[in-house]
């Protein structure tokens, strides 16, 4: 409702939400997660359904996809090409108290959303931690000889529990993407327009406008809302 003057015919400002490195990392990571989930299903449920399948092949695909899983994220974070990735990771991990409250109240308190809302930030943090846990427990399961059997049992249990939660989170993530076409599109094109930003990431929009204001005052940058943009560190 707070979209100020959306009918103005002036050129709409476009903001870069994800650069090519981030998009590539996301989709490679998504593909890896997809392979892991699809190979996990027969590995986990095979005994229950008595399914006949090429277990060893599926196991190897699961194993090596898992070993590969951290690579796109680590590569996209490292090096000079990872500037945006690192900046966004900082955004996801450092919250304001207002964001904490928004998250606790499940979105019922006011928020000039940052580039990512607290739900998205929580998703980033959870997926990051889950990768570490699944990688470590998967390592114990595969190269079990170096670990006592009680650890192997614990690793099996933990790997299963985290896999179940990750599955739920991934399903939720895909659901949110499909019901928010603008967000989804930006993971393909890299950009969002300012109307999307005003609706979904007003705090970030103000930030970007302030950064743009000095070099080239675009017509879209005119209506600054007071008091909303002091969240920059």
């Amino acid at each position, binding site marked *: 409702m707070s979209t100020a003057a959306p009918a103005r015919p002036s050129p709409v400002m476009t903001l870069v939400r994800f650069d090519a490195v981030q998009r590539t990392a996301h989709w490679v990571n998504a593909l890896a997660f997809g392979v892991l989930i699809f190979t996990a299903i027969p590995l986990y449920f095979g005994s229950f359904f008595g399914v006949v399948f090429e277990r*060893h092949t599926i196991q190897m695909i699961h194993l090596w996809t898992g070993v590969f899983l951290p690579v796109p994220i680590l590569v996209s974070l490292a090096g000079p090409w990872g500037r945006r990735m690192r900046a966004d990771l900082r955004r996801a991990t*450092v919250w304001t108290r207002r964001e904490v409250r928004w998250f606790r109240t499940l979105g019922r308190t006011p928020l000039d959303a940052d580039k990512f809302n607290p739900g998205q930030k929580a998703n980033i943090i959870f997926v990051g931690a889950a990768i570490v846990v699944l990688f470590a427990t998967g390592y114990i399961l595969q190269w079990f000889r170096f670990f*006592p059997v009680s650890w192997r049992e*614990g*690793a099996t249990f933990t790997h299963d529990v985290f896999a179940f939660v990750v599955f739920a989170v991934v399903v939720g993530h895909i659901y949110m993407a499909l019901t928010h076409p603008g967000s989804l599109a930006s993971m393909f094109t890299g950009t969002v327009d300012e109307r999307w930003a005003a609706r979904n990431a007003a705090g970030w929009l103000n930030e970007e406008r302030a950064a743009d204001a000095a070099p080239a005052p675009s017509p879209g940058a005119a209506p600054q809302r007071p008091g909303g943009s002091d969240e920059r560190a």
Partner: protein
Amino acid sequence: MSQLSRPDVEKVHVGRRAFLGLVALGAAGVAFGGSVQRFVSSKVGSGLGGLLPGGDHFRIYTITGSFPYVSRRKYRLKVSGLVDHPATFTLDDLEAMPALTMVKDFQCVTGWRVTNVHWKGVRLSDLLANAGVQPGAVAVSFDSYDGADSESLTLDQAHLADVMVAYEMLGAPVTLEHGGPVRLVVPQMYGYKSLKWLSAIRVVDRVEPGYWEQNGYPVNGWLDGATGNTNPNPSLT
């Protein structure tokens, strides 16, 4: 306005805390998950609840990717090698022999376990005694109907009182995916030693490492705590 909202915009390292918390949770899961699992499986059993993490459920492995089907009528177990009386057993022959029943945990080398699995079958030592092991024999090799898997035990291990050629599991004939109609059960060792779809027992003069041992698993797959010398003395029925 901006004075009032100061506490709101103060930064909190939520991400670092949540991340480390989750990783710590995972580490705790590795340390204590086995106990949790045993507790959970005692509650949910092996029904539908067994599908949940921690529930009792077997994970079915095959080397070849398929289960070799042999009907109960056509099933044959061949005993040969360094024995006085090579023989071939039908399922009826095995069922006519003195039966052993035991309840054992099934422990996989990769870390899953199923508690209290009920087995019924014939002692391997009885089969060996009937066949008459010749001097010079050192080990026993086992072949599988899948044509790929194999296993071996030393003669001492093969004579442990709980090493069994099983035809019943959990109160019913051993199912195809669990290695039926007849499989080996070596409860003091990891599951890979309990060869499925047992087709032949060969008494030999040296340990022939089985399929999994050729792929890097220990030849002696003792469980932690298994001495192999103390007979667990399972009940004979």
